């Protein structure tokens, strides 16, 4: 089933993601794709995540297609101007990629090519609009396309952002620009997320809660202190810290599984997006812990 139909089927949707390698050795990437492709509804491929130069997102999506999975092409506005972004959408469509996640992109100085020029010719809202425009058979220059595109377009939102209102305004702009689904930044506080969902429910979009695997108490603390929009409640940090030596990761898998199970049981949102960040091989364990 194509991803848009899955989103609209009423089923609890599960997506996950893989990160392309720095280099041309695709063994690991292909291994992760094989592990995930039948366990999740679609797989995101990150686009130079954290502004670190890697094998391109579209290359990873093509590998997913070859291996029989459903890819979600992550596209940031950091590295390409409007010509290059539109061209890549044409290429993606022509090769059977039907899902795009539109992001602004991390800042250049956080990555590994600190002196590069950040492009940001478009932003995430404008990129969503561009997709909808290309679908009408026109490009941003007002010219006709010989063969248009059609995408299931998504975006991201950060339910833990502080202050939250600017974030919600941007969320609504993304909805108006044509976003059909949202994958959220990692969430851990289900009460706060529930409040966000009460608000988000008024819009005709599907929301997949971001689940980032916690691998240790230290990592959880680090994320709370350093990653924008991430807040890990103290009781989860304590739970990880209390795990016997060598078992923090399995405790993290348990926590992720438990959260997914609750989100699903209480029908809080439409699905989850699982980010295992370098530990993709445990995604099936997380799903098993969630009873899925």
């Amino acid at each position: 089933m194509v991803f848009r139909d899955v989103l609209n089927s009423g089923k609890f949707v599960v997506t996950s993601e893989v990160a392309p390698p720095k280099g041309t050795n695709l063994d690991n990437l292909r291994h992760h794709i094989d592990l995930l492709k039948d366990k999740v509804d679609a797989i995101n491929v990150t686009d130079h995540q954290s502004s670190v130069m890697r094998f391109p997102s579209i290359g990873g999506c093509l590998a997913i297609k070859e291996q029989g999975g459903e890819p979600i092409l992550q596209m940031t506005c950091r590295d390409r101007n409007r010509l290059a972004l539109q061209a890549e959408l044409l290429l993606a469509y022509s090769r059977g990629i039907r899902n795009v996640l539109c992001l602004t992109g991390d800042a250049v100085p956080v990555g590994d090519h600190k002196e590069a020029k950040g492009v940001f010719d478009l932003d995430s809202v404008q990129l969503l609009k561009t997709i909808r425009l290309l679908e009408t058979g026109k490009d941003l220059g007002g010219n006709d396309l010989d063969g248009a595109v059609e995408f299931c377009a998504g975006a991201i939102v950060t339910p833990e952002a502080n202050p939250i209102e600017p974030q919600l305004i941007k969320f609504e702009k993304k909805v108006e620009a044509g976003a059909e689904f949202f994958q959220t930044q990692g969430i851990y506080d289900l009460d706060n997320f529930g409040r966000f969902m009460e608000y988000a429910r008024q819009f005709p979009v599907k929301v997949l809660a971001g689940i980032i695997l916690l691998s240790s108490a230290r990592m959880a603390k680090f994320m709370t202190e350093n990653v924008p929009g991430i807040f890990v409640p103290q009781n989860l940090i304590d739970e990880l810290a209390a795990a016997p030596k060598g078992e923090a990761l399995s405790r993290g898998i348990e926590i992720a599984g438990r959260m997914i199970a609750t989100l699903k049981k209480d029908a809080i949102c439409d699905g989850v997006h699982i980010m295992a960040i370098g530990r993709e091989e445990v995604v099936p364990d997380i799903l098993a812990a969630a009873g899925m």
Partner: protein
Amino acid sequence: MKSITKQKPFDEIKEQLADFDRVFIVGCGTCTTMLKTGGVDQVAEMREKLQELGKRVSGEVVIPTACDEMTEAVMKENSPAIENAACVLVMTCALGVHRLSLYLDRPVIPALDTLFIAMEDTPGYFHEVCAQCGQCVLGETAAICPITACHKGLVNGPCGGTNNGKCEVDKEKDCAWTLIYQRLKEQGRLDLMRRYFPPRNYQVVPRPRTLKIP
């Protein structure tokens, strides 16, 4: 408005002067004096450093405002000393370097890097407020410029990197979009933040940019 400059690493200046044994130094009495990068004291310091290097400094002058047309007269006044030099080392911003090069046949070497154009918020603290984008949006952003104050120059609201009012590139730096949000909210104009801004025109005046008053 001030042109913000920083002295180049001395090794770079040394390298650029490698082929010249006699140097004339020019400073500016306006921005680089205020920035302490090209005033009377910095020009004197540079003279001493060049002399230590074994260069002959044939003269020096601090022009009141190096970027304006009075500079031509100052160059004329100093022409004997300038003619005695193999090059002119310029401790003004790049506008001054351009201006000088109009009047000199000698090679003109900048000693400073021109960083940005800024306002002085508090004494000694300079803050870039405008990047001369050609399409001013300040009316819709509560007079905070998203092109310069936002690291990514975003016009449709904050990115996902904003954190407790700070920018993802620097925990000390305010997120422009939090500031814009707060000020628009105070003004009861948050509806402006909901407005969609289409892709910007980067060719308002195609580069190189020029303008002639009719």
